[in-house]
């Protein structure tokens, strides 16, 4: 019993953080080993949101897999949609229309802004900046309204189609989008004033959670996380897809790779995204919104009735009205956004209901065990998602169902390198660093 102060034994403490924890946006468990307040070791346990994405895709047709991709990174579902569709298009060897590639760029960038807004909002809130959270959520709401206008849904949109998109952009979108962008810019400026030079925020984030350049490369981390560490890699620049080679934008880079740099990179990327959207609206063929439909407009039920009676003369030039969820799919718009390829493109609704060829084409694509059948083979296609390189590896055995759909989720690699960003810092820094990685459980666990 000779307990002198000199030989007191100290032991490290094991602390579980998560899986249900207010500062863990998403479900993940961090098993931390602490020496006093300092983090010695971190192990991340994942898999709490495993939803069998890959297996579900194998059990559905190529088109039915699209809604599953929405829910991978549910903060920017449009990018996932387009990534998957582009991978299948590559397998099929389809060229999407010029206008469609611009639509995809616009919607991807809108999604990227919502993702960055959410990431900054959540991580700022976890550091106590509730006001910034509310401002950024307000900005996100303006963009959700735009997304709803275009796709019909706020979040899980399923807007991509193999070969194109669901429908053309709605009327008056250009002005609405511009106004939403201006309002978003205003909120971003506000948050810039609130956070960027805020002493508390800078103290909590500057030189905290440093990801070195070497670690970023060795853990194959991409996206804002790697760019904050000074790695100049952006899929949009390195392997341009859609219309990214025709727009002018900068890739912001950080120097130190700490939380503050990640914040700055995300803020700047939002500005660049707005720049891209403005260019696309200006440059896209046929203008920013669909122009007057032209031709004879007729109610769809009248059209069907006439067709049933055999009075088909002249019907081929008729534009039928459709219910709001199908807007943008009428005949004149359809050919601007979908390739003229009967293997993959659903016919426009006027044809589906108006003539037997359209009806059969529709059925051949929709019916079980008919459907889209890419040739045997496999391919990989990557897009720049909000968190980094989002890749889809799709394999086909020539049937109407994917043989394999494998995702390269960008934040999986960030989680692999997480311990290098946490070890040596304090417990309180875990929250700040974890927030800046923007882990999305949906794409992490799939």
């Amino acid at each position, binding site marked *: 019993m000779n307990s002198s102060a000199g030989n007191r034994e100290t032991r490290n403490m094991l602390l579980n953080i998560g*899986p*249900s*924890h*207010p500062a863990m*946006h*998403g*479900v993940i468990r961090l098993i931390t080993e602490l020496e006093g307040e300092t983090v010695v070791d971190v192990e991340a346990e994942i*898999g*709490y*949101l*495993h*939803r*069998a994405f890959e*297996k*579900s895709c194998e059990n559905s047709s190529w088109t039915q897999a699209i*809604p*599953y991709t929405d*829910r991978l990174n*549910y*903060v920017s579902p449009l990018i996932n949609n387009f990534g998957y569709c582009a991978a299948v298009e590559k397998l099929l060897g389809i060229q999407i229309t010029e206008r469609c590639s611009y639509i995809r760029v616009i919607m991807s960038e809108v999604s990227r802004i919502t993702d960055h807004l*959410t990431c900054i909002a959540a991580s700022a809130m976890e550091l106590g900046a509730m006001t910034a*959270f*509310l401002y950024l*959520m*307000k900005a*996100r*709401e303006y963009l*959700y309204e735009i997304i709803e206008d275009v796709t019909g849904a*706020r*979040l*899980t949109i399923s807007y991509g189609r193999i070969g194109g998109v669901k429908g053309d952009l709605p009327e008056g979108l250009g002005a609405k989008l511009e106004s939403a962008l201006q309002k978003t810019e205003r909120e971003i400026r506000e948050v810039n004033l609130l956070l960027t030079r805020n002493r508390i925020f800078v103290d909590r984030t500057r030189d905290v959670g440093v990801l070195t350049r070497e670690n970023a490369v060795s853990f194959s981390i991409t996206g804002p996380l790697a760019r904050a560490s000074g790695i100049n890699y952006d899929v949009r620049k390195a392997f341009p897809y859609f219309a990214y080679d025709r727009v002018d934008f900068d890739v912001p880079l950080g120097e130190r790779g700490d939380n503050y740099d990640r914040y700055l990179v995300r803020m700047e990327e939002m500005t660049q995204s707005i720049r891209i959207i403005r260019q696309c609206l200006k440059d896209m063929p046929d203008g920013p919104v669909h122009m007057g439909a032209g031709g004879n407009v007729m109610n769809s039920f009248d059209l069907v009735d006439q067709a049933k009676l055999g009075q088909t003369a002249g019907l081929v030039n008729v534009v039928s009205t459709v219910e709001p969820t199908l807007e943008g799919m009428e005949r004149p718009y359809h050919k601007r956004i979908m390739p003229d390829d009967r293997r993959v493109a659903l016919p426009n609704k006027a044809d589906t209901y108006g003539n037997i060829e359209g009806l059969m084409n529709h059925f051949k694509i929709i019916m079980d065990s008919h459907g889209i059948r890419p040739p045997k083979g496999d391919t990989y296609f990557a897009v720049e998602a909000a968190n980094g390189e989002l890749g889809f590896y799709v394999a086909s055995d020539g049937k109407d169902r994917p043989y394999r759909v494998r995702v390269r989720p960008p934040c999986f690699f960030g989680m692999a390198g997480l311990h290098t960003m946490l070890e040596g810092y304090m417990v309180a820094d875990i929250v700040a660093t974890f927030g800046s990685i923007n882990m999305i*459980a*949906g794409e992490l666990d799939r």
Partner: protein
Amino acid sequence: MENLPSEGPGFLTSQLEAMVGWARKYSIFVYPFVTACCGMEYMSAASGHYDMDRFGAGLPRFSPRQADVLLVVGTVSHKIAPILRRVYDQMCEPKWVVAFGVCTCTGGFYDNYSTVQGIDTILPVDIYIPGCPPRPEAVLDGLIKLQAKIQNQRHPLVRES
């Protein structure tokens, strides 16, 4: 004296219960058990634009001990299910559970090996809000329905054995 009812709630007790119900329905402290996509719509519903605070449910409590309503937001997999049950068990009575989104109601389109097919298989649910994810308006509608339920149920101040 013989004509008075000897059991059942009296006037005062029932009025007191109505008052307790009224007080409880406007001071809902939610525990958001956020797992997946629905969390985005929860954030929208909770922040300025839709403002759940108007209904007295604005303040989330991240300790189950302090919460009245367990808001299960997003897909519940078999791996997280025991944790959800544990959070529920830690909450004090009176407590209510809201299934937010179709995954928590029925499993949604995740009909597979990893997903719990509706959280009512593991805990009692008061209100189901369907949608994948539900719009913020639907969330507020569900919240109003929960308030009605809280108002109309009995709130015995003394535990009946």
